[in-house]
């Protein structure tokens, strides 16, 4: 049976992201007031796993590192059809950069037992480094393909995928175990069903902290992060806006005039 681990991150709802501010003292993000959702691209990663499971034998574990309330998104993944949910949560994990995040997740994958496939989103909507998938791959000594947009063929030994390039794609064959990061072109994620929610009620979420992973505190969270934020600045605005005023027609006419003056029309 193919063992798939899907890494899902709880992110502040991107639709409300403007409300997030940086804490001037700790220099981490204050994300308290924004509701947490599944990172949009991670839904595509989960969907890929669910589709594989629909065509053969697979066991899907969802893995997330985050604050205790990230358990809600793990639960949501269970309701969508994942078999097992793991939340890596510990005060020591806080403030992690991509490197420390990848390390902690890799330790989670290892503790969970041998994985054949690890799926990630290409990027998270709040971190957006794109680093976590490839860095985990190195730490797990697995190959990685980023930006997978199509799974051409798959079996328990190897996957054949197409991965996006700026103007084109790479067609690759990858021996398992392997890490893949996916783009939104890969599939259309399913939505929650009532029966899924009922079934998920019976599924437990496993929560692991620092001691469960058995790793030193220096290697996780802020302490385990090679990069640190040192400074924050507001950006000055250098332009002054002139509004087009009047009725809709008048505004359009004025804008046409402006566009003609600058040579666009």
């Amino acid at each position, binding site marked *: 049976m193919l063992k798939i681990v899907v890494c899902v991150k709880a992110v502040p709802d991107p639709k409300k992201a403007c409300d997030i501010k*940086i804490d001037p003292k700790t220099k981490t993000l204050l994300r308290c007031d924004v509701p947490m959702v599944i990172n949009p691209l991670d839904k595509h990663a989960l969907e890929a796993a669910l589709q594989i499971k629909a065509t053969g034998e697979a066991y899907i574990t969802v893995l997330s590192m985050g604050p205790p309330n990230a358990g809600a998104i793990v639960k949501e993944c269970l309701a969508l059809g994942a078999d097992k949910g793991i939340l890596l949560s510990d005060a020591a994990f806080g403030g992690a950069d991509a490197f420390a995040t990848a390390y902690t997740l890799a330790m989670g994958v290892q503790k969970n037992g041998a994985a054949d496939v690890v799926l990630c989103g290409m990027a998270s909507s709040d971190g957006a480094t794109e680093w976590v998938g490839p860095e985990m791959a190195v730490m797990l000594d697995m190959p990685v393909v980023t930006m997978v947009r199509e799974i051409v063929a798959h079996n328990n030994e190897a996957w054949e995928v197409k991965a996006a390039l700026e103007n084109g794609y790479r067609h690759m064959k990858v021996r398992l175990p392997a890490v893949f990061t996916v783009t939104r072109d890969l599939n259309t994620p399913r939505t929650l069903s009532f029966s899924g929610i009922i079934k998920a009620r019976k599924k437990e979420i496993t929560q692991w902290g620092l001691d469960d992973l058995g790793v030193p505190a220096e290697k996780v969270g802020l302490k385990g992060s090679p990069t640190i934020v040192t400074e924050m600045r507001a950006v000055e605005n250098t332009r002054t806006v002139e509004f087009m005023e009047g009725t809709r027609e008048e*505004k359009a006419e004025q804008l046409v005039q402006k566009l003609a003056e600058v040579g666009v029309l």
Partner: protein
Amino acid sequence: MMENANPVWVIADQENCNLLPVTLQLVGKARSLADDLGVSVEVVLLGDGVEAQADNLFGAGADRVYLGNDPELANYHPDVYTDVIVGLAEVQEPQIVLLGSTSMGRELAPLVAARLKTGLTAHCIDLCINKDKILEQVIPAYGGEITIVCPERKPQMATVAQGVFPLPVPDEGRTNEIVPVEGPFQHKGRVEILEVVMEEPEGIPLDSAACVLAGGAGAGDHNGWDLIARLAKELGAGLGCTRPAVDEGWAELETMIGQSGKMVSPETYLGIGLSGEQQHMVGIAGAKTMVAVNNDRKSPVFNQVDFGVVDDCREFLPVLLEKIREYREKQASC
């Protein structure tokens, strides 16, 4: 004892044996960082038939090029390229390593960083050396900019999008050195590249468009997006977008403008239904005229443009398209 004399590195990115502009831009930037540190600039150039490109790297400011020229290196291969670069870096110990935020760089940078157990900053918009001789890496975040450093571990690694730094003026008279990188270049057999296929991009290329129009979440749905696309066509503008437009499936990722997308430098920029978040706005460099259409007069986007229209874009664009048609007719008749 010598001060830290470790070099500044750039990993070159090439397509069909031609350097990508971002590589030369990074070498130019590396030159100024290296001058501040009093060290040399070294470039790792991998490919097959790329030896002629070394001169361009020297002209841009490189002192030394590590040249891996081999059929096995023709295409970027994650395992092979990572092994070569990590192998060299462990011996040469660069203090800084820069890569372009290209398809290759975005995958290769974290592979190299994780192997070297060091930090990596994504999509920087500025780089400089501080008084402690540490690399300050600037990225936009949450309405402003933040500075990131990697003070304890080396190398300090960053990726930068094409167009963030200018192309350096070629300087012919530099002394320089080519160091061949010897094979064999073997991969572990885990990843096999069956084919690399290039596709023609659709529409007006964003990088070179004189007018760029970007649409955002305010489009509302596919119909709203179609209006924005029609306006772009009507104006002969390159059509870009913000991230929500990609997330909603209205626009392709390749057309996203900003920190983690494309950098553009048009004469005129129009932003429709977008809020002017830093991560998007940093992608627009040096536009003479900036215009925004947004239904919220208080939207921060209006602090960053010259002309503003407060209106629902879904209602306003049809009227604007009509007025453009009328204007064109009038021009044609006189």
